[in-house]
């Protein structure tokens, strides 16, 4: 016992102030360690089961969905607009979610345009959905509008185009929509599905139809390009290759 007492005594040469200081140091260091452990533990626990693989997401792979999980990584979304709100040029895409050429654009050309124009903050793209092909178009578009309320519309659009089925054969099933909703990080899939039939979305769809008429849209996909203060003009396209878009986008970017 006596030797135990000796062990806890400070060296005889250590001034009382230094002993108090060391005690404070130990307390502060211990407190810091506890704080970090608690913060990391809460972070890990509160994130587990959510987007532990965050951006668009490998769950798309495990849910059997086609699509590039990293396509939209790092690109902001606001409603139906993809890209920085400060981008000087806006490209509007009129598309039907059942239209095969729209799917071709989405899977073949869009990735290039994202890298060249959207990610650098030069161009933002606004999706305006039309539903003239049939019932699957309307059902899919309502879900996209519901996802737009959570700023995840483009993730849903991308997955729907990547997993597009035959026109009007009922491919937009509840099961597909649930898997799409579950595959997107930051999206409450159940909320998206329950909000899909809101009357507001019918009004939004009518408004997009009116805008399509104003812009002279006769088929999908149709694209317009506009710069702030300049009215939009349709892009004349010989093909859906990225090269066909560059002249119009580059011209709009040139003041």
């Amino acid at each position, binding site marked *: 016992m006596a030797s135990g007492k000796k062990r806890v005594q400070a060296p005889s040469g250590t001034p009382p102030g230094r002993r108090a*200081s060391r005690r*404070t140091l130990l307390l502060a260091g211990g407190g810091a360690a506890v704080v970090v452990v608690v913060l*990391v533990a809460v972070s890990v626990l509160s994130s587990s089961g959510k987007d532990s693989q965050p*951006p668009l997401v490998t769950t798309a792979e495990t849910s059997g969905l086609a699509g590039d999980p990293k396509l939209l990584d790092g*690109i*902001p979304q606001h409603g139906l607009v993809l890209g920085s709100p400060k981008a000087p040029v806006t490209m509007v895409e009129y598309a039907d979610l059942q239209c095969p050429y729209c799917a071709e654009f989405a899977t073949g050309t869009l990735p290039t345009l994202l890298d060249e124009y959207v990610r650098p903050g030069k161009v933002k793209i606004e999706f305006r959905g039309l539903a003239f092909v049939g019932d699957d178009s309307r059902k899919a578009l309502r879900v996209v509008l519901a996802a737009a309320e959570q700023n995840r519309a483009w993730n849903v659009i991308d997955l729907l185009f990547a997993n597009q089925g035959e026109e009007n054969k009922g491919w937009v099933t509840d099961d597909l929509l649930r898997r799409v909703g579950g595959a997107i990080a930051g999206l409450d899939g159940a909320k998206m599905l329950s909000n899909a039939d809101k009357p507001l979305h019918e009004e939004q769809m009518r408004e997009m139809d009116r805008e399509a008429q104003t812009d002279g849209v006769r088929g999908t996909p149709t694209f317009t390009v506009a710069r702030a203060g300049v009215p939009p003009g349709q892009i004349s396209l010989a093909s859906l290759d990225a090269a066909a878009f560059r002249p119009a986008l580059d011209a709009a970017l040139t003041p």
Partner: protein
Amino acid sequence: MSDRALRLAVAALALAGAAIAGYLTWAWYGGDTVGLCLTGGGCETVQRSSYAKLAGIPVSALGLAAYAAILGLTALDGPQSRAVAAGLSVAGLAFSVYLLVLQLAVIDAICSWCVGNDAVALVLAGATVLRFRLSDRF
């Protein structure tokens, strides 16, 4: 470096950190894009990931509270407040490193504002620990 200069540096760093954390908190609650992100929208991805909040509180708000506390402790300036400020800033740095690893390895996006905060946290931890060690000598 004099203690007065170190104290001013700690206060300035805490203010800079509070400004960054305050901006990120404002962006979080405003639901707006994190402007001036130098990494092509990575700020948005990081801010919207599930790691951006702890028990419903944005981590940027926790950072703001920590910087405010360090600022208050620097104003008090007693031996114990120096120790607590050093402990708090080291804890903040360690948590910032954890968040940086998440950005690189899990979220796969880098938020330039967060990296700026990490730099402030690193220098602040060094300054507060140095202040504590210097006061410990006398």
